[in-house]
């Protein structure tokens, strides 16, 4: 069966109309959702210009006082997860002082968190501004926000990193 020239045009128009009619009507989040591939980085953690990580890997805090990179060691998944948080100043350079004040996974879309009963947060040996959050439990698949509160160079601030749990 051959499709005439005008038949193809109607087909294309119909397909375009179908595409316009579908899809989520809600506003989309403007921040890209971090995937494990993004967060692992490629090769060394030291990026150009003496920064601790590349701008692609960096997540800025709300007031810009620090940037953070997360490296998944186990996850993201439904179940026990583990990751490393690397803190830097607002320009991704090694901070003079740093402290991870709080780490909390939160499912904003539903308004609840995960299970933190067995979670430990500790400084990583041999790495100046790296902390490991271990054994936090993500209770279901879907979009989560990792809320990281840190004090970097004397300034406390919070970064929210979205992550999709498969």
């Amino acid at each position, binding site marked *: 069966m051959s499709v005439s020239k005008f038949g193809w045009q109607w087909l294309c128009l119909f397909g375009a109309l179908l595409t316009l009619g579908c899809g*989520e*009507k*809600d*506003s*989309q*989040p403007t921040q890209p959702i971090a995937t494990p591939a993004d967060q692992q980085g490629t090769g060394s953690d030291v990026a150009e210009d003496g920064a601790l990580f590349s701008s692609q890997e960096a997540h800025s805090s709300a007031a810009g006082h620090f940037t953070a990179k997360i490296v998944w060691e186990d996850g993201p*998944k*439904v179940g*026990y997860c583990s990751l490393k948080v690397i803190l830097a100043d607002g320009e991704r350079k090694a901070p003079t002082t740093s402290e991870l*004040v*709080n780490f*909390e996974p*939160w499912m*904003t*879309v*539903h*308004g*609840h*968190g*995960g*299970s*933190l*009963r*067995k979670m430990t947060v500790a400084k990583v040996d041999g790495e100046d501004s790296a902390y490991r959050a271990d054994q936090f*439990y993500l*209770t*279901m*698949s*879907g*979009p989560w926000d990792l*809320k990281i*509160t840190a004090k970097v160079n004397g300034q406390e601030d919070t970064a929210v990193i979205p992550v999709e*749990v*498969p």
Partner: protein
Amino acid sequence: MAINIYRALGALLVVAGLMTADSATACPCGCGAVNAQVMYPGENWRFALTVSHDSGFAPVSADGRLGSESSPTSRQTLTLGIARSFSDSLSATISLPMEINHHPDAASHGGFSDPSLSLRYSLLQQTIAEPLLPGLQLFATLKPSLAKSLYDQPIHEYQMDIHGNGLNEGVAGLDVWYDLSEWKLGVQQNLILPMTRINEGSAGTSQAFTPGLGAKLAVSAGYNWIGAGQLLGIIEQELRQPNKISGKEIPRSRVRVNNFGVAATVAAGPRRSIGINLKRTAAFGSNQNTTRADSIAIFYMAAI
């Protein structure tokens, strides 16, 4: 197995249940509240007992993808309640579900789920003399959040001690039905009214979380073997507007749930019946931000 006792309803409970074996906690992040039992003229009390088994829990994301099976992996629910009519037009129902959660890697945990109080008022009664005149009833339900939910820390890893959805809910609705001798047709429209709850984060921060306004439409149709029993098919769709945090909409949090169920009832004596309900939540079409679950329920009802 730990059982929590509620002071408010202990004296009122005898034996009762739900007209439809809705599993109110099948979706841990919030579902519509249950409805009042339908009472017929001449009935003073209605009691029922429902035992249901829910399984196959799997979250459905905002873009309709089915996620990993969530915890618990199965649940049994015993629902007790009692309905009392105050007149031929007005009745009230109290319902109390109790459930046991199961997971292969954790000890089972039992507890009371959220109770509910419902009122039903008949605007029109169906009569044999006017078969084309439908039955028309208004109903309203209040479900307080009493049982532990995912919003209450500490959360057990497998959520075994979660027996409530964490939300105070109000439901108002309209029931229209036709009993045209052997054939039955019904339409129910609910409005699910959101109530804000304050969620506490681990760092002492709190946020006001408000579920979106919801609407649920249920259409049922079936056949009635007069004096013997009936078979009903039910299709439901529930829609909810986006949730809000401190008044600000959360992106991608609209809810859409399409449910399908079948209910069979058999007469077990004068004003007594037994039956079975099969239901799948998020059964067909496009679903968003919900949980798929399969439910089988057996119920016994008696009216005096």
